[in-house]
């Protein structure tokens, strides 16, 4: 295979992969909007998924948010003070930490914990023939297995990211008081002046998109596993790399959206 052929092959596989993912995402999205999908069995799976993804992780998530968020806010505030840019700390807090860092931090956490688990779970089910068995029993695999996981991803990311932002806001009260000597009223005023509805809506939307693709891609990757056990790690590693690529693409797209 010549060099040009290799480039062509790479471009075709990339395009095929993108088309495949978007086609699959379209199917899932259509099912999500269909009322019939929300059967009692699906709802049970959804509750379990949210429990494992968000509720079970909540104490650890809150502790990590407080420690990491407080440290980050302290460093950023100290840096701003050192540079004499104290008047911009509201913009930094809202524009950087709330709308950028919170979704990014949360999606990383969800991807590492749940994305990889979903990818492996689906790949193992495929290898063990469980998916085929479900189909044999005329159970809709997409409704029963996939849609609850994707909805869970979207809901968990939006909720956890919002929680992370709230924790950071409260950390900000403490650090703004210690570093800048700013009272709660002044702090609230600065935040309100810096907060834009459009930014918050974009951040929430970004979280939802992150959650959607952080689950859809591992599911698709898991389903692409063959009947051999050795295909499981390949499917998992491929899926995770694709998820990280998707995260980066969504992040860049959201930044571009902000420019307009």
């Amino acid at each position, binding site marked *: 295979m010549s060099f040009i052929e290799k480039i062509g092959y790479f471009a075709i596989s990339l395009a095929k992969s993108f088309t495949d993912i978007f086609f699959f995402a379209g199917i899932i999205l259509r099912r999500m909007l269909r009322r019939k999908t929300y059967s009692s069995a699906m709802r049970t799976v959804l509750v379990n998924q949210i*429990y494992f993804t*968000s509720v079970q992780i909540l104490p650890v998530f809150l502790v990590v948010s407080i420690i990491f968020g407080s440290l980050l806010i302290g460093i950023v505030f100290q840096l701003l003070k050192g540079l004499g840019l104290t008047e911009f700390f509201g913009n930094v807090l809202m524009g950087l930490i709330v709308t950028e860092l919170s979704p990014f931090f949360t999606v990383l956490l969800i991807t590492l914990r749940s994305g990889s688990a979903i990818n492996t779970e689906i790949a193992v089910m495929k290898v063990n023939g469980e998916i085929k068995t479900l189909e044999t029993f005329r159970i809709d695999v997409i409704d029963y297995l996939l849609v609850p996981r994707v909805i869970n991803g979207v809901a968990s990311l939006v909720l956890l990211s919002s929680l992370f932002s*709230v924790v950071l806001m409260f950390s900000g009260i403490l650090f703004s008081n210690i570093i800048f000597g700013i009272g709660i009223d002044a702090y609230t005023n600065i935040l309100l002046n810096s907060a834009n509805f459009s930014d918050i809506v974009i951040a929430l939307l970004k979280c939802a998109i992150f959650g959607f693709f952080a689950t859809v891609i591992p599911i698709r990757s898991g389903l692409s596993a063959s009947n051999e056990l050795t295909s499981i790690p390949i499917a998992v590693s491929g899926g995770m790399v694709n998820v990280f690529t998707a995260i980066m693409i969504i992040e860049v797209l959201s930044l571009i959206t902000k420019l307009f």
Partner: protein
Amino acid sequence: MSISREFKVGLFIVLTTIVILLSLLYLAYEKGFFEKVFTFTLSSKSGDGFTEGMPVVFSGFNIGKVHALELNDKGIVLIRIKIPERHVKWVKQDSSFILYRPLIGASRIIVTTTNLHSPQLPERKIPEVDIVNDINDVITKVPPLIEKITLIASNLETLSNNLANPKGDFNRVLSNVAKVTENLDNILKKVDKIADKTDAQLFGKDGTLPQVNNILKDIVGKLEKLNTTVDNINKISQEASEGVKDFHILRSDIDDTVNAVNDVVNRLDDLISSKKEPEFKVP
């Protein structure tokens, strides 16, 4: 009693949703989404620096924002600003509006109201916006500064050329200085010689100072002799003074004697004048 998984999940979703909604509602309330909003129109000859959403600031606080920008038929830029009801009190008829474009940071319209008791700005009135432009101010200040720097640079270049040129002013000055130094060296040698001679004349064996010393020693000896003489004079003077005291006593004795003689003479006169024959025999 164990809490069911469904309850935990439900509680998590409900609480987090409430937190998000409350935050958004609070933000909406504070941003004045539920308030009556007044629209004022400002004008400017140029739309440079104005953007939709730009904050309108009074005393450092955001009181509104630019809602829309329009260009009217006369080519004047109309800036529509929206002020929530609670901040309308800061916008008066005599308020001035300044577009402030700082060097660092976002541009903003600053409202300044000197008389807060003046009537409220009517919505149909269109005040003009003054422009304070840090960037352009800096830019206008830069060319003269660059000119000066260029002048300094050219002067430095001339100076450097002069320094480098062996026939240049600086090198000539340096050679003159060398000559002056040489002359000074000769003068110093002469001064040294003069100093040596002066030293010999002053401090030599037959110099002035040893002679002065001898004279002074002689004078000291003479003064010592004079001291003895003065002492003797003092003694004489003292004795004379004491003698004068004796003279006083002697004089008073003489005065007494003269007075006694006078008395005797007077009695004799009395005696002579009282006798018929002014003749008497003396023993």
